[in-house]
């Protein structure tokens, strides 16, 4: 898994061995090894409570690991936490900006803490507000920001001095599609400037779209690692996706398809859709014929790579959404 070219030719942003974090008897992080090359977007993908945030907090020096060791940007996490802190920046899961203050005050605060004079802090703050499209909200209390604005301010606060490594904890959770795309653009722009980004997400399409490499995390362990292409390939060659015109015919279609293909047919979360793994195009035409013969009308019929959703299902034996709503889970 780790013997591909990238990890050998480039210096590592993060090298971790056997990280463990226990909360009482619960092993929130249960032996995580990482080798994350510099200059990429690396995604931690997993449901709530899988240990993504805990791992990130350990790497950002917020939590001490109970076992294991790590080097972050070449500095030992336990021996030189302050050196690590000068190289990284953290944007937490719950907005890590001060919602009682306004936008510009938040950025000035961080700039002052970095050691800038009051004058330069103000200049840098308004420059960043402008770059992140928040100049009109500079004097507005963050409490009154939309979710997307808050996230952008949060990332801007991490950019007062552009870090070598940015931790982004669930950057788009709860955002509307437009704000989500804005955040994605920001992350992409960031990587072109040389910052390595480590993000956590529970959204498969986010990991797919954004991350150069992905670690699938479940129950505190990495259960798969690689590019999204590699992860998909590890699950199987092709997946047949069928979307029916009439959702009420789905049960019948499931039966017909599994008889025709001889493989299990899964019901997707979309009430009109089904999916099955299959070996080749020949089987696909057999499936279409079976549906056609029984007058089940099809609106979409496609053969393609498995989605990360299917990857997750295959790897964990349960859909990714399973644990999503566990409120208060120690993640």
């Amino acid at each position, binding site marked *: 898994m780790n013997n591909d070219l990238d990890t050998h030719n480039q210096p590592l942003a993060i090298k971790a061995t056997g990280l463990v974090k226990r909360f009482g008897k619960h092993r929130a992080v249960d032996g995580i090894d990482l080798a994350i090359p510099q200059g990429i977007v690396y995604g931690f993908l997993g449901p709530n409570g899988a240990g993504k945030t805990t791992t990130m*907090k350990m790497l950002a020096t917020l939590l001490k690991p109970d076992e294991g060791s790590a080097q972050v940007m070449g500095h030992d996490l336990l021996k030189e936490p302050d050196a690590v802190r000068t190289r990284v920046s953290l944007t*937490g899961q719950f907005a890590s900006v001060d919602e009682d203050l306004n936008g510009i005050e938040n950025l000035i605060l961080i700039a002052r803490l*970095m050691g800038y004079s009051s004058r330069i802090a103000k200049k840098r703050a308004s420059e960043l507000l402008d770059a992140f499209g928040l100049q009109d909200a500079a004097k507005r209390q963050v409490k009154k920001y939309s979710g997307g604005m808050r996230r952008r301010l949060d990332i801007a606060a991490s950019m007062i001095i552009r870090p070598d490594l940015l931790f982004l904890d669930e950057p788009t959770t709860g955002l509307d599609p437009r704000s989500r795309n804005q955040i994605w653009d920001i992350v992409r722009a960031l990587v072109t400037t040389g910052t390595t980004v480590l993000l956590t997400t529970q959204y498969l399409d986010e990991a797919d779209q954004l991350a150069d490499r992905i670690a699938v995390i479940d129950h505190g362990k990495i259960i798969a690692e690689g590019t999204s292409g590699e992860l998909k390939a590890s699950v199987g060659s092709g997946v047949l996706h069928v979307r029916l015109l009439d959702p009420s015919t789905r049960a019948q279609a499931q039966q017909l398809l599994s008889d025709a293909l001889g493989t299990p047919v899964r019901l997707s979360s979309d009430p009109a859709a089904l999916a099955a793994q299959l070996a080749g195009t020949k089987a696909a035409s057999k499936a279409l014929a079976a549906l056609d013969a029984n007058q089940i009308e099809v609106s979409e019929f496609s053969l393609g790579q498995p989605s990360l959703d299917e990857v997750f299902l295959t790897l964990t034996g349960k859909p990714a959404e399973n644990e999503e709503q566990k409120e208060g889970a120690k993640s």
Partner: protein
Amino acid sequence: MSEEQSMAKMRAALVEQERPPRPNGIATSLTFAWRALLKIKYVPEQLLDVTFFPVMFTLMFTYLFGGALAGSTSQYLQFLIPGILVQTVVFTTVYTGVSLNDDISKGTFDRFRSLPIWSPSPLVGALIADTVRYTIASIIVIVLGLILGFRPAGTILEIIAGIILVLIFAFSLSWIFTVIGLILQTSKAVMGISMTLLFPVTFASNIFVDPATMPGWLRATVNANPVSMLTTAVRGLMGGRVAFTEIIWVLIASAVLILIFSPITMYLYRNKR
């Protein structure tokens, strides 16, 4: 502005910044104090506890109990004002724990803890800002007292020294509430526990009455209470009879509070999930 342009703008803003020399602990603590004081601008209700409560307590105790306790309200004022100053400021320290708990639950502190700064500075900064609040409360109590007829025999310098002594003790006492603020889950719980602690500590003291009429065991407790010593010291300073023994004891108690509770606070703060 097109997508392309805005992206170019963003990249321009993300070029390598020259890192200024690392600020010292005092500078970062003062920056955090600035943050806390800025909040007063947005949430002026925050000042209620240092404005409204001292006025209410002073009026209530002077006019409801003063006559019965000391013969006349004007006589009681001379006794009460230094005490009510202590009581008001000691009660205000609770909000240190409450606001810390609030702050931490919102995730702002995750960022602070990941910054390369002297790590106690967010807490020290909050306490410095609280000291400003305690000063406001002190001034209100003294001015109200003067209006009602409090006539201290001490000089202005002695009165100021009395206030400073109260501030030193309050700053030290606050570290207990930062511990409570870090241990408990909600700010409501922090408020409840802290008040439960503070009521006996402030009322089992010589703030409101002379302990002479109390049963022996209680009188011993009251006299050993640091709040009583502080009150005696402040009464002494404001009355022009400087009570050195009590002042020394208050300073020792303050040092002990800081020595015990600030390391616990820092331990909890560093290891907060």
